[in-house]
């Protein structure tokens, strides 16, 4: 079974190639069959791998498949190899399993779109790149996959490229994540210089000794910081978070797959993968937690006041990834990955049902124009209830509770009180904005006429994800023992029960308070909301704490100014002289091509004379 590992990567790639070279000749059904089928095949293989892995784990907890040696030149032998262990298996399950559901849903969602097969070719390429990212045994290949998913994200955000706004959103996402990627690339170079290898296992083994000196500690701090830069960019954490809300310009299945379930969690994966480096630099690791905590609060406040259904979910994604970073910072590696998995389930569910709502409301995304949809769209409503419950971490019956509670408990047990309190307050914010979203969209008076979708590719993905978002998903425990170090507070007993009770009551309390406010509408509160100060705060929150404005003034405009100043200056001319010289050389040398045979023969004879002379004198 392990031998088939390469198929997980090869099938989506083949799907991409077929769709790309088919260039729309396949028709919608053909494109759907190829696009969904290839990911489905990959999911099947993954399921087989999971069964095998749980039944008969490979020696040492990891299986390596060497695909081929690229070339052997002297002592230089780069090889392509895939490595499967508990962590990558978990990621594979999420990517192919959730990915398959989203593909299936998309085959319904994208019907009638001009770029139907183009859409699936990008999506397949994305899945292939993401699989490559998590299976690569080498940080270089991880980086290839990293750039590959970035490219697909760019292509898919700008999928409806005829609208200029989508194009600029795509460019923004690309450039902002690129900033992070650059940090990461520098970090990788530095790592390679220090250790002489980018093979992940070797890096993890060599690092403790190699960095066991004062200068070594400085180096590993720098490397970890740079890798964190890459993770922050990809996972939309502070301060590189501004691209994610704009990325919602892409089709909703893209938001579900790339900008909620998989790609944006790649940063979490990267940090977990290189956990040894972060453990060697404790202050950077704590910084990871702080970044997560601040992001989760910031995004939580912002989500409170958003009016676009997808932006609410986008900010919520940001804040949930903040939880994962918080967990990483607290040393709760497994809890972070666990939350990554459950989050993939319920956030994919939420995005897909949001897509169903949007389509039902004729591409309306403003929640103020929706309302009372629970009667016309019962399936979407229940999906939102369960998914929202999981997001708000309703105790015991939802998947999100188990993972979020684990994070909070580990933060508490590890003595990270700052992170713990931030997480707890974030849980309150989460339950409030989630409840607000559901109430506004599905209760109250009906403002538009919605028509529900139908067909197996519509309800099956929703149903599967719905089940996974309940406590069923919480029962799945990723096999991370041996891959990631144990967290400080395993098997907590009574203290853990206390934390559970606390976080559970915070979530329930948030929901109840919000519902109370919504249904009773106390006059005093409404008046308070109308106050100028409150409006200002609302506007401030609505603009996500003004980061876009700040970056525009601080970076974008000065950059454009610099570009204007620099164009046509001395540097440019200095660099321009090289092509100018070459052009002159070209003109001169072209004159030797006279087309006359005698001249050619003369150059021949002259060359011969010179060569004979040179050989005679040189000996």
């Amino acid at each position, binding site marked *: 079974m392990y031998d088939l590992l390469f198929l997980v990567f090869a099938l989506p790639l083949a799907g991409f190639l077929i769709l790309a070279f088919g*260039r729309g000749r396949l028709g919608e059904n053909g494109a759907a069959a190829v696009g969904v089928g290839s990911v489905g095949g990959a999911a099947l293989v993954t399921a087989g791998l999971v069964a095998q892995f749980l039944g008969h784990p490979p020696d040492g907890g990891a299986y390596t498949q060497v695909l*081929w*040696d*690229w*070339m*052997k*030149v*002297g002592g*230089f032998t780069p090889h392509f190899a895939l490595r499967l262990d508990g962590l990558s298996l978990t990621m594979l399950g999420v990517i192919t399993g959730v990915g398959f559901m989203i593909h299936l849903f998309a085959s319904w969602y994208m019907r009638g779109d001009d770029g139907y097969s183009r859409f699936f070719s990008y999506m397949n390429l994305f899945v292939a790149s993401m699989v490559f990212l998590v299976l690569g045994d080498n940080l270089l290949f991880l980086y290839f996959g990293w750039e590959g998913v970035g490219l697909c994200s760019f292509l898919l955000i700008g999928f409806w490229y005829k609208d200029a706004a989508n194009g600029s959103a795509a460019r923004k996402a690309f450039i902002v994540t690129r900033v992070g990627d650059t940090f990461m690339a520098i970090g990788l170079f530095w790592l390679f210089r220090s250790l002489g290898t980018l093979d992940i296992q070797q890096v993890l083994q060599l690092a403790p000794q190699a960095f066991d000196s004062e200068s070594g500690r400085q180096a590993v701090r720098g490397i970890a910081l740079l890798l964190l830069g890459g993770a922050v960019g990809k996972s939309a954490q502070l301060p590189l978070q501004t691209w994610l809300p704009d990325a919602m310009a892409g089709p909703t299945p893209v938001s579900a797959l790339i900008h909620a379930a998989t790609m944006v969690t790649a940063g979490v994966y990267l940090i977990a993968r290189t956990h040894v480096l972060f453990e060697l630099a404790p202050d950077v690791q704590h910084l990871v937690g702080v970044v997560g905590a601040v992001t989760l609060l910031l995004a939580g406040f912002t989500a409170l006041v958003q009016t676009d259904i997808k932006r609410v979910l986008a900010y919520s994604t940001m804040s949930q990834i903040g939880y994962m970073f918080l967990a990483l910072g607290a040393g709760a590696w497994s809890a972070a990955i666990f939350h990554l998995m459950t989050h993939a389930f319920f956030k994919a569910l939420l995005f897909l049902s949001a897509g169903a709502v949007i389509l039902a409301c004729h591409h309306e995304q403003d929640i103020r124009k929706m309302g009372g949809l629970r009667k016309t769209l019962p399936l979407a409503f229940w999906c939102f209830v369960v998914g929202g419950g999981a997001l708000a971490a309703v105790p015991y019956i939802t998947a999100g509770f188990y993972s979020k509670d684990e994070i909070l408990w580990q933060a508490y047990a590890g003595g990270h009180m700052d992170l713990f309190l931030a997480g707890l307050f974030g849980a309150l914010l989460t339950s409030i904005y989630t409840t607000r979203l559901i109430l506004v969209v599905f209760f109250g008076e009906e403002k538009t006429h919605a028509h529900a979708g139908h067909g197996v590719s519509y309800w099956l993905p929703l149903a599967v994800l719905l089940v996974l978002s309940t406590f069923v998903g919480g029962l799945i425990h990723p096999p991370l023992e041996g891959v990631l170090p144990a967290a400080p507070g395993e098997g907590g007993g009574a203290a853990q029960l206390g934390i559970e009770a606390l976080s559970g009551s915070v979530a329930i309390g948030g929901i109840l308070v919000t519902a109370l406010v919504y249904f009773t509408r106390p006059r005093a509160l409404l008046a308070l909301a109308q106050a100028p100060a409150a409006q200002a705060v609302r506007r401030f929150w609505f603009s996500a704490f003004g980061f876009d404005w700040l970056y525009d003034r601080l970076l974008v405009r000065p950059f454009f100014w610099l570009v204007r100043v620099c164009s046509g200056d001395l540097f440019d001319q200095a660099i321009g002289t090289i092509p100018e010289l*070459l*052009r002159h*050389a*070209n*003109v001169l*040398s*072209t004159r*030797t*091509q006279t*087309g006359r*045979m005698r*001249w*050619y*023969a003369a*150059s*021949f004879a*002259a*060359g*011969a004379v010179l*060569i*004979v002379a*040179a*050989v*005679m004198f*040189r*000996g």
Partner: protein
Amino acid sequence: MNGIALLPLLPILITSATIVVAMLAVAFRRHHWWNATVVAIGLNLALLASAWLLLPEFLVRFLPQFAGAAGAPVIPRAETPLLVVDAYSAFYMSLVLATALATATLSYAYMEGHKGNREEVYLLLALSALGGLVMACSRHFASFFVGLELLSLPLYGMIGYLVKERRSLEAAMKYLVLSAAASAFILFGMALVYAQTGSLLFTEIGERAGGFAGPDHSMLLVGGALILVGIAFKLSLAPFHLWTPDVYEGAPAPVVAYLSTASKTAVFAVLLRYFVEAKAYRYGGLLDVMTVLAVLSIVLGNVLALMQDNIKRLLGYSSIAHFGYILAAFIAAGPLAVEAVGVYLLTYVVTNLAAFGVVTLMSSPYGEHDADALWDYRGLFWRRPNLSAILTVALLSLAGIPMTAGFIGKFYVFAAGVDKRLWVLMGAVAFGSAIGLFYYLRAMAQLYLRAPWVRKYSAPLDWAQGAGGVMLLALMILMLVLGVFPSPFIAIVQASGLAGQ
């Protein structure tokens, strides 16, 4: 000679038989498809035979578990003093034969529209390929010289094949005169070497040359230099390169595909064997001269190509530069150099065949000229996406972009050069690659521009069904496979090392 002794000569024998049969076939009935098929079948058989010769050596290296299946190897074996068939010659014979086959396929597509006699081109092609085979096996001045001339003589006919076209005739005249002069240089050089050593056999020359010292071996050295002059002409190394663009422009496109690949490959094969077996590597003077030739070729070839608007001339200039790169690897000497040269030639042949193949399919002797202006390729992507894809990959490969064949070749050149600390040469290679990128991309960009005007040249509509189209697609795949998964090909090249190394 008994039957077993003849087995290693099979590729040469089959090719000769093909020539005779093809001549009889033409005499019997002139029919384009039928005559072309006879030659193609013969060349295929010869290719199979030479691949079969190489197989045992390859299996030992790459799939040891199957090594027994290929039977006892019949090579290496010396056939008279003139020829030796070893893995090295089997590799270069296969390369030449495969190129000849590809050329035959392209010629078929090209000659369909030709008004005059179309059949002789295959006959000439097979004769020229025979010359290439002889060169790949030659270890003696007589076979070297006969092989070289057998390679070149039919080329005069092929270059001037379109007798009604002035440019074709002009190209044939230039090539004939200059090539004959180059042959005379080689001959005189051989005579000097023979005069000094008393032997025409490479290995014996190497042995006897060891006994000379000081000014005593100046005749040997100058003889070697004169041979080098002639070879440099055939390989179009600067300053003997001036003929190249003119001949490339005037000759029919499939002939250029052959001229730029097979003929140069065979010449390089014999040069390498001569240098190794006659131990010419020990003469610093010759190596210095070759360094200068390589640097000049790289710089001039790339600079000349910079603003070129004719794609055949552009590829001609680029081939000047590419043989500069190969020479750079060659100068590095040592086992890695033989490997580097082999890999580079392989990737170069595949790439150049694809590039000229596209030019061939775009052209047809219906019109006055081949479709050789870059102008003709503007916006090709919107009319012929498949042809554009092939040309794009070929240009990327020529530029040496990673994941294409050209990258592997260039990587080897660097590996060999850095291994021997040839910094001047490596600097030239890096410089050439950098400016090379400019004109390859410049040509490539033309393919994707929108063309508002009516097209002037077009490939036949059913080109993909034609053998030429299929072959080009195969070449494109080969270019990518070579870039991504080169190890079996590298194993083939490693299997075909020279015994003297």
